[in-house]
């Protein structure tokens, strides 16, 4: 009997490979017509080098540890062609430049002061210090192709355009029939609770946000560069390799609205009332005046899901939660792409027990 992974996002697919490496037969069930189409593609495309989490040293350190693994495994999907600058805001930032330096030193993340011409891009009234860092972006199209190839090589069974309806002991009901399953892994990210509720299991506390990533054409001076202003209500401009353009996200404007699930799934959110790209561009100009020459092309909207405590400490732990009511059903969720390397140790813990 095979293991079944529900959700063909990056997490589900990488989990399927990890199970396969342990000798299990695996089927991946995906609702969309292809893999990695939803949250795995609709995000900042940042391969975290740890710099982003000065308020959660554990998350920063895990990113640091997992970063080289991701590069080693999916290096061909990474865009390294740009220089990335982190700017520490002078006001309203949760960390000072000195604290950021100490944090990077502690987690072993390379950091160097930005050259004078780059410092000159920023308003010195609002930015305390600018650093050049080592952080890249992934190309979601290349990642999809690489994952597809790895799954084929590993002979993982794929069932695309198949909607999982509910899990029961030893089987998964889908809109295309019933799959026999030894274990079921619920890797449906923002829909984790829908499957749990449909299966008669208790929901997990989750926080969702409807987010907007604005795709922009950067000003000529910023081509080939990424800029991230930390650590608070600021913004990030980064190459978005899959669409050969740049993404602009803003801590204040990217989440349009948020909601929490406690005891029952909340259902799909209402559509956003409009784009907030103008807000993001206007605020970015205050810190980086050249952004007045940036042009908004279009936006992508997606539901982002985190554990409720992450709202406060900005951490991104993975969720790995065996279901109490339904033995063999495990809910798995990662807040960011390189978190996937935290999975094997959880599998080590789970599998001897299940066997």
């Amino acid at each position, binding site marked *: 009997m095979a293991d079944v992974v529900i959700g063909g996002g990056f997490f589900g697919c990488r989990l399927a490979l990890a199970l396969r490496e342990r000798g299990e037969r695996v089927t991946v069930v995906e609702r969309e017509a292809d893999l990695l189409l939803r949250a795995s593609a609709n995000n900042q495309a940042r391969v975290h080098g740890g710099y982003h989490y000065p308020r959660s040293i554990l998350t920063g350190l895990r990113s640091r540890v997992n970063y080289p693994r991701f590069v080693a495994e999916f290096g061909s999907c990474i865009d390294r062609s740009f220089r990335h600058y982190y700017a520490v805001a002078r006001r309203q930032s949760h960390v000072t430049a000195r604290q950021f330096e100490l944090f990077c030193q502690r987690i072993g993340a390379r950091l160097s002061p930005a050259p004078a011409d780059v410092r000159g891009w920023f308003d010195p009234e609002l930015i305390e210090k600018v650093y050049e860092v080592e952080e890249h972006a992934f190309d979601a199209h290349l990642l999809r192709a690489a994952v597809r190839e790895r799954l084929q090589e590993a002979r993982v069974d794929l069932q695309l355009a198949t909607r999982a309806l509910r899990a029961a002991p030893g089987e998964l009901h889908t809109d295309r029939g019933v799959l026999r399953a030894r274990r079921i892994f619920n890797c449906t990210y923002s829909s984790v609770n829908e499957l749990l509720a449909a299966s008669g299991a208790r929901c997990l506390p989750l926080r969702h946000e409807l987010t907007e990533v604005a795709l922009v054409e950067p000003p000529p001076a910023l081509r080939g560069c990424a800029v991230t202003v930390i650590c608070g209500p600021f913004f990030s401009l980064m190459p978005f390799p899959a669409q050969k353009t740049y993404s602009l996200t803003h801590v204040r404007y990217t989440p349009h609205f948020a909601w929490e699930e406690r005891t029952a799934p909340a259902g799909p959110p209402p559509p956003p009332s409009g784009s907030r790209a*103008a807000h993001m561009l206007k605020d970015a100009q205050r810190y980086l005046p050249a952004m007045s020459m940036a042009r908004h092309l279009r936006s992508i909207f997606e539901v982002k899901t985190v554990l409720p405590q992450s709202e406060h400490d900005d951490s991104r732990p993975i969720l790995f939660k065996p279901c109490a009511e339904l033995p063999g059903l495990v809910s798995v969720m990662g807040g960011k792409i390189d978190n996937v390397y935290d999975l094997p140790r959880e599998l080590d813990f789970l599998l001897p027990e299940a066997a």
Partner: protein
Amino acid sequence: MSAVSALFVSVVCRLHDERGLVESLLEDLTRVLRAHYDNWEIVLVDDGSRDGTTARVKELLGRFEGVRLLRLSRAFGLDVAITAGLESAIGDVVVTLSAESDPPDLIPQLVELSRRENAAVYGVAPSRRRGWEPPAWPRRLR
């Protein structure tokens, strides 16, 4: 004047113990801004209120879109509060107004005049001596 403009308009408003009128203020501002502009924001600067204004605004944040709350660590006075708001505002044009007595309906006129003349614009209430009839303002009397 009634056409929706692409201009980004920020409204900065200082709140000092204004718990009771902040809801009607937001209702009026939102009505006017939504009717005239695609992109706008309301920046409320809480200048050390001690009457629960902050809690009231936080409740209202869930109902009104495009509102930001800046909290000063204590009461600094009008000048500092407005300066903090101006420093944080992101609009092409910023309108500052008194929560208590300035009529939001004049915002489009102020903005239009400022753009046309490329100048800072301020409004003056007509003098009572010249036979001025009090409008529905100030807000506290409504």
